[in-house]
């Protein structure tokens, strides 16, 4: 038979039985179809409402099958599509479109439409396993936790707490991410990181350092309002397909400019009104090239700059150096084309800038992001509908996991690592601060950023005296993070061999399980996917959605929360860590964890999204308008969907969430905002004559709607409230909490550590935003490149540009040396560009996600992309005698000599001459070795292939430790 018999059968027959539909009663069907036509015709005349609405009217109420419907969120990107699951007898039997979601309106991409397969799990890991002399052996959960716990304690005793690296995941729910960070704190290290390091760490650093918060300013749906969409370093047609629904409809309705700047003529580029081909790693010259025309022609928004931006004159000075000729020399883009693009961007407003990893994954990632922000500021395109920095993040909950501090530089919600931050969270956790301190090897390390996940292998392999902590990394504890997504895999393979302990907690074994020649000390723990657990997630638009458990964890899989609890219990701090969190059996209650987040999340407005409010949004999705994301009716009327953070005050305050950041056209109470006064009140500037002057960093004569202060103002503290005479609005209970936080100087207690929420409440009731009303910074003093400048990639084919645009000098960053400058210099001297003349870049395919282990194990997806490939221009292919579809051997600039990677050639004009591109989702082949036999039996992904990161090379952003997988060098020959 062609079609396999499945569990669905139960549903289908029960459906027939329930409604008594039999063949021959075709009338029902026809009646429906007629009605369908009528309803649809009516709707179609209103506007270009497509099929979704047509069907919605009919689909409602027609689901009469015996199956239960459960709602969760697709795990594969940050758009936040609702997944509707039909569950029958505990089995996920079907997927239906989630029409009511104001985000995806029923739509999915290949991954979302195939996501049910994840919990059927032909290739899932079924039970805990460990390596015994190189063989995978089944063990019980009890044995696993006991042995892992004992080994962790042994390492702690021998090498210190810092030697254990807790690598977490953007696949966690918010509750999982928060718990993972808290776990690392209780263990006593800041070596706690996740995928944000390798995707948008530079975005977060760049954007937050410009105007306050590290997130998308607007939203996917708001892009419908844009008149100009500029894509610089993003290919959402493949990476965020459902967002294209809004982008393309916006393009159509507004007749908007749809400008794609990319080294590849991407699938997004195929729909562009203008495509600009750039050389990888030249984003800053592109932006400065645009700004050159903008400043020269006076297209900048002068009033906006005057009132809301600090340091634009410094940018103006730098931009003068980027003449059209120089920009063309660096980027390859003709001056006239950039002038055209610049004019559109500046004049056809509102304009927004869209980016993803094309901009962030560079040694100049933070500076790239900063330059993008500057372009938006110069043209006055921040803080309103259709404007802003639309940063498309990668995973379901990468925004949430970032916010909740799975990050080496901060505790949850960007409080940092300084003592006040630790004291704040100690208060929230009702923990003894002094006890927490004793958990660290050295109290100083408590306040020192950890090691970036991009460099775990360096921290393992470098000489001990080069790693500024107690000892090298001895254990990688990996929960839900691929191993092939980090650059320089040959180094990773070496490092893996030298670890004392490797624990991989994941639904599938992942690359970690097969890379390196480990024989013992390796554990695989089967973990439930997001669909087998419940909890909240934050999509790229900062909106929180609650996912229901669709089915119970399959096989012997356990929930992330349960694993962390079991381990905390084994390590002896469960009672402390879970003192305010109810635990059912061994499973911590997700709602309680979110409530704890609410109690401490004042800094980022994570305080108002109680589980009850979020669940109510999910239950009443249809009340929200897709265009505005606002509920027009029902119990959540006035709220924005998912209460996008900041959602100020306690849940009882009922702040509606903030759909657009820094939007001064709304009062704060209704979701408005200003740029954040985060960088002080004023700055002392040095003048050329040697004197200094003080310049205000607060908003200049502008303020948000209904603000009682008609000018800029600093962040709120009790002291500021007193000066304004607003302290009398605080309740006695609120004052008591404030006094308890700092009994000696209560005036110093700020809006972000006031656990009563009183300071926020009072400020907002006077129309003011708690974080202050400041200027955005064009000059981000304090960063390595306060004014972004072009710097050539470490490995560049344009060696003649290195002298003028070198990378930053070697320095010590994040406990490790960053020797990028030396590497670049050596590469130039050795003539590496002659041996490896082709630029190598990497990116995403629509069918797969991240390291790809999960999606390559999904038969419906794997069938669509069965081979790792490299795109090469026909001219370069002809030079090398390479035919389309043939096997080629690719070598990277840092690969061990004689080693190559084997993959297929895709000869295409999609890439320009001299540029190659590969997807980054493949693994399981390592320098031509097929590692299929090294996976536990039956848990090998269907499709294996070489990883691009076997080819990628050195290079780290100085601000975040971001890797450089987007611009390096390679050579290709026919196999």
């Amino acid at each position, binding site marked *: 038979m062609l079609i396999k018999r499945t569990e669905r059968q139960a549903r289908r027959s029960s459906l027939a039985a329930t409604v008594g539909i039999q063949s021959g009663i075709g009338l029902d069907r026809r009646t429906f179809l007629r009605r369908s036509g009528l309803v649809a015709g009516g709707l179609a005349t209103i506007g270009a409402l497509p099929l979704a609405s047509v069907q919605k009217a009919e689909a409602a109420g027609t689901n009469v099958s015996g199956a239960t419907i459960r709602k969760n969120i697709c795990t594969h990107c940050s758009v936040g599509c609702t997944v509707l699951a039909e569950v029958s007898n505990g089995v996920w039997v079907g997927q239906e479109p989630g029409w009511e979601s104001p985000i995806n309106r029923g739509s999915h991409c290949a*991954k979302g439409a195939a996501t049910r397969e994840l919990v059927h799990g032909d290739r899932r890991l079924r039970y805990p396993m460990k390596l015994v002399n190189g063989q995978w052996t089944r063990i019980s959960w009890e044995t696993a936790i006991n042995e892992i716990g004992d080994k962790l304690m042994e390492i702690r005793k021998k090498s210190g707490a810092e030697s254990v690296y807790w690598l977490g995941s953007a696949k966690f729910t918010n509750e999982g991410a928060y718990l993972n960070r808290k776990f690392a704190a209780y263990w006593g290290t800041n070596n706690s990181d996740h995928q944000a390091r390798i995707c948008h760490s530079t975005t977060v650093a760049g954007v937050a350092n410009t105007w306050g918060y590290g997130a998308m300013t607007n939203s996917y749906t708001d892009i419908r309002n844009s008149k100009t969409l500029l894509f610089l370093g993003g290919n959402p047609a493949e990476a965020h397909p459902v967002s294209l629904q809004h982008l393309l409809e916006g393009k159509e309705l507004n007749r908007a400019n749809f400008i794609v700047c990319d080294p590849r003529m991407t699938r997004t580029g195929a729909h562009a009104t203008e495509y600009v081909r750039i050389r990888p790693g030249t984003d800053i010259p592109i932006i400065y090239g645009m700004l050159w025309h903008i400043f020269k022609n006076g297209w900048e928004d002068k009033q906006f700059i005057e009132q809301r931006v600090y340091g634009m004159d410094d940018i103006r000075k730098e931009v003068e150096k980027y003449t059209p000729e120089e920009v063309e020399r660096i980027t390859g883009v003709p001056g006239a084309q950039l002038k055209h693009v610049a004019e559109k961007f500046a004049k056809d407003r509102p304009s927004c800038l869209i980016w993803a990893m094309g901009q962030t994954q560079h040694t100049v990632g933070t500076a790239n992001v900063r330059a993008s922000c500057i372009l938006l500021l110069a043209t006055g395109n921040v803080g309103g509908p259709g404007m802003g920095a639309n940063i498309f993040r990668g995973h379901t909950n990468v925004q949430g996991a970032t916010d909740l501090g799975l990050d080496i530089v901060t505790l949850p919600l960007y409080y940092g690592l300084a003592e006040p931050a630790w004291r704040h969270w100690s208060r929230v956790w009702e923990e003894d601060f002094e006890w927490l301190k004793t958990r660290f090897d050295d109290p100083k390390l408590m306040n020192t950023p950890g090691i970036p996940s991009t460099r775990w292998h360096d921290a393992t392999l470098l000489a001990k005296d080069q790693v500024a902590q107690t000892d090298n990394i001895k254990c990688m504890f990996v929960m839900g993070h691929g191993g092939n997504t980090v650059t320089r895999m040959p180094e990773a393979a070496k490092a893996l061999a030298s670890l004392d302990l490797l624990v991989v907690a994941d639904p599938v074994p992942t690359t970690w399980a097969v890379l390196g020649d480990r024989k013992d000390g390796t554990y695989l723990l089967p973990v439930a996917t997001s669909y087998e657990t419940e909890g909240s997630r934050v999509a790229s638009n900062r909106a929180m959605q609650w996912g229901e458990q669709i089915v119970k964890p399959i096989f012997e899989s356990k929930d992330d929360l349960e694993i962390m609890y079991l381990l905390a219990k084994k390590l002896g701090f469960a009672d402390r860590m879970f003192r305010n969190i109810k635990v059912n059996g061994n499973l911590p209650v997700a709602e309680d964890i979110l409530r704890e987040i609410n109690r401490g999340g004042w800094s980022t407005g994570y305080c108002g999204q109680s589980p009850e409010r979020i669940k109510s949004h999910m239950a009443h999705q249809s009340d929200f308008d897709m265009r505005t994301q606002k509920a027009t009716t029902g119990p959540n009327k006035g709220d924005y969907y998912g209460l996008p953070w900041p959602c100020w005050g306690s849940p009882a305050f009922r702040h509606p969430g903030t759909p657009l950041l820094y939007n001064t056209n709304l009062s704060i109470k209704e979701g408005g905002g200003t740029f954040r006064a985060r960088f002080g009140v004023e700055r002392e500037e040095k003048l050329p004559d040697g004197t200094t002057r003080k310049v205000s960093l607060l908003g200049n004569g502008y303020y948000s709607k209904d603000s009682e202060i008609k000018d800029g103002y600093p962040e709120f503290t009790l002291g500021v409230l007193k000066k304004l005479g607003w302290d009398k609005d605080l309740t006695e209970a609120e004052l008591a909490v404030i006094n308890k936080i700092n009994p000696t100087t209560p005036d110093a207690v700020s809006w972000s550590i006031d656990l009563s929420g009183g300071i926020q409440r009072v400020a907002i009731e006077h129309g003011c935003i708690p974080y202050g009303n400041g200027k955005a910074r064009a000059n981000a003093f304090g960063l390595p490149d306060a004014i972004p400048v072009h710097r050539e990639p470490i490995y560049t084919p344009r060696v003649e540009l290195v002298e003028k645009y070198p990378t930053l000098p070697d320095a010590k960053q994040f406990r490790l040396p960053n020797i990028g400058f030396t590497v670049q210099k050596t590469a130039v001297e050795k003539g590496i560009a002659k041996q490896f003349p082709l630029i190598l870049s990497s990116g995403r395919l629509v069918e797969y996600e991240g390291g790809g282990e999960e999606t390559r194990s999904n038969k419906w997806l794997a069938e669509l992309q069965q081979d790792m490939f490299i795109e090469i221009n026909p001219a370069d292919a002809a030079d090398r005698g390479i035919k389309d579809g043939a096997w080629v051997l690719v070598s990277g600039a840092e690969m061990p000599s004689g080693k190559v990677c084997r993959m297929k050639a895709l000869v295409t004009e999609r890439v320009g001459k001299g540029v190659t591109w590969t997807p980054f989702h493949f693994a399981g082949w390592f320098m031509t070795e097929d590692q299929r036999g090294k996976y536990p039996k039956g848990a090998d992904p269907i499709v294996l292939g070489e990883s691009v990161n076997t080819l990628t090379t050195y290079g780290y952003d100085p601000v975040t430790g971001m890797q450089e997988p987007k611009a390096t060098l390679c050579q290709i020959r026919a196999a």
Partner: protein
Amino acid sequence: MARMKFLCDADRCIECNACVTACKNEHEVPWGMNRRRVVTINDGKPGERSISMACMHCTDAPCAAVCPVNCFYTTADAVVLHSKDLCIGCGYCFYACPFGAPQYPKVGNFGSRGKMDKCTFCAGGPETDFSKEEYEKYGANRLAEGKLPLCAEMCSTKSLLAGDGDVIAQIYKERVAKRGYGSGAWGWQTAYRESIAT
């Protein structure tokens, strides 16, 4: 009476393949069989366009015209279905189909291909609605449930439309009027002997 049609708006299709996996998911279509696929022309060049392709449920379907055992039939909603009990796997329909829709589980000539399989417009087959036999041979019967084909319902950009031909033509027309361009209802002339005037 509704006349069911598919329409793929090539100016919206981004080759995300949601239609392909939605189909696999809904009907448990096995590896190697593709009732729907996305075809891209001018791949990687200016003018690149993608179109989602499946059985178009043609008016006077050529497959039915050439079938030696007469296994095809057209439903009241103009959906072209076939009986796998009658099909002999000769492959004539594959040669006749202008859209490459018929699929076979085996490679070989004439009768050795196995029973033909293709898109059913999510309308099952000749067996009793919702019966075990119907699902095993043809997949889900969404139409009888009052739902439209899942590929179109889940389309990421609402590029693929399915439903009453007049309605989707109207939607497409309005879309084109609003945005000012449209490369036409691809395949309609071949399948339905008509095009959409925009």
